[in-house]
């Protein structure tokens, strides 16, 4: 395990803090850069915060993992919208809403979720959990879960 990376990203991971490229609108999370990963420009980046929810774009359910992990373990690619994008034009920043700004596309591990409930297009809630520990020191990050009784 490498410890410094967790320490470097900790602040942004724990607060869902992201940056948005002024040239192309790409949202970088959790890493902060001086060049944009999508347009390659040395653009201006503005601070933004992500909502504590995401829309599943695709997923898998991992069945074979080392003993340290609980299986079956769902893992998804999710689009996580920005909070109050562009002067708070409502909180419902759905993809396609012109004023909403783009969501960040992230990998998300699931927790406390029935694998059968996984579906492309569904909304999942981001919750903070201990991801794992390094020699007894817990590393916290967000995971995703389908709110109980709200599976759709």
């Amino acid at each position, binding site marked *: *395990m*490498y410890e410094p*990376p*967790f320490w470097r990203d900790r602040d942004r991971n724990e607060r869902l803090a992201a940056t948005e490229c002024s040239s192309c609108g*790409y949202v970088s999370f959790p890493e902060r850069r001086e060049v944009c*990963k*999508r347009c390659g420009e040395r653009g201006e980046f503005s601070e933004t915060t992500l909502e504590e929810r995401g829309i599943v*774009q*695709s*997923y*898998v*359910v*991992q*069945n*074979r*993992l*080392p003993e*340290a*992990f609980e299986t*079956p*373990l769902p*893992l998804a*690619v999710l689009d996580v919208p920005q909070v109050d994008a562009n002067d708070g034009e409502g909180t419902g920043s759905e993809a396609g809403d012109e004023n909403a700004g*783009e969501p960040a*596309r*992230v*990998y*998300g*591990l699931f927790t406390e979720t029935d*694998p059968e409930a996984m579906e*492309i297009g569904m909304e999942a809630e981001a919750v903070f959990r201990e991801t*794992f520990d390094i020699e007894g020191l817990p590393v916290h990050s967000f995971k995703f879960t389908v709110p109980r009784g709200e599976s759709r």
Partner: protein
Amino acid sequence: MSSDTSGREACVIGSGMIDFGELFDQSTDDMAERAYLNALDDVDHGISPSEIDAAWFGTLNIADDASSGASLAHATGLFEIPVTRVENACATGSTAFRSAVESVRAGETDVALVLGVEKMRDSAAGLIEGAALDQVWRGRGVTMPAFFGMRATRHMHEFDTTEEQVAKVSVKNHENGAKYPHAHYRFECSVEDVVESPTVTYPLNLYDCCPVTDGAAALLVASEDVASEYTDDPIHVAGSGLSTDSLLRGDDEALVGFPATTQAAGQAYAQADISASEVDVAEVHDCFTITELVTYEDLGFCEKGEGGTLIDEGVVELDGETPVNPSGGLLAKGHPIGASGVAQVVEIYEQLRGEAGAVQVERPEVGLQHNIGIGRNATGSVSCVNVLERR
């Protein structure tokens, strides 16, 4: 993208590989030496080791015993020449080949050796466990089947691709592999066998995944100017491309395929001045069944979303219009990472020369080799495409 190859063409003049498998009785050096000697012996008019000007060594160094170009020198006796170790994830072997081709084209090298090797079975942990516990886990728990399986779930959702269509890739490749002497697994399987095999990572089952295999493969690449000294039937490297992408840049194409493959193929087709429809035979990266199915689309063998139809129509079967993975691919042949891409070129070389035996395709003139790897904590891919021609 420049299609200028500086006027100098690179040709393959010899190839060699070993029988892939669980080779507990052979070390990394044993495998590398044997593949090298097989390549020397394959040169029609013969070649002496002193005629090799430079070498490229492809390995991921899974067994932690081959960390630099020195390993190649020790295995082959080729000291006192430039040896460069290349690592580019699972695209390592073909990137090593591409590097040798570039040097020959540039006029730096007349005769180059490309040697790819991987000792997979010496590591107790295995790739999934090692990855899950270390680097890849840090990137949020993405193992290899998860990275590729993500495309399968989305492809089935978006294009109504069925589990059976995906399984057919495994059935086809095992049927071919059963006829291919260097393959690790030489048995046939049915669609039922694939869909009923244990789930590794939904939606991928055991028979959707390539095995853990040791192996080595070697190529001799020469400038067109000197190729005739070694063979009357050299195979030209007509085009080569290499690109990278990221799943997290936000483009939806990356959810159902690999943009890096489309880009690398575009570069290679432009250099070779051909279109996808002119490819007669292909060895493509089928680490998982879904990887091959989306690669048909990314290479332009069919439209995006039509991969399932292509396999239903038999186009990619051994006797089809565009046979894909006559060798059995990584699914049957095995995937010793550093060797895989080199072995794919070996197979295309044999196909174009009509030396592929029981899996020989009818008179191919243009062959394509494609190799893809996961990059950067499983956030993206690196893809290499090479086009070879018999002239």
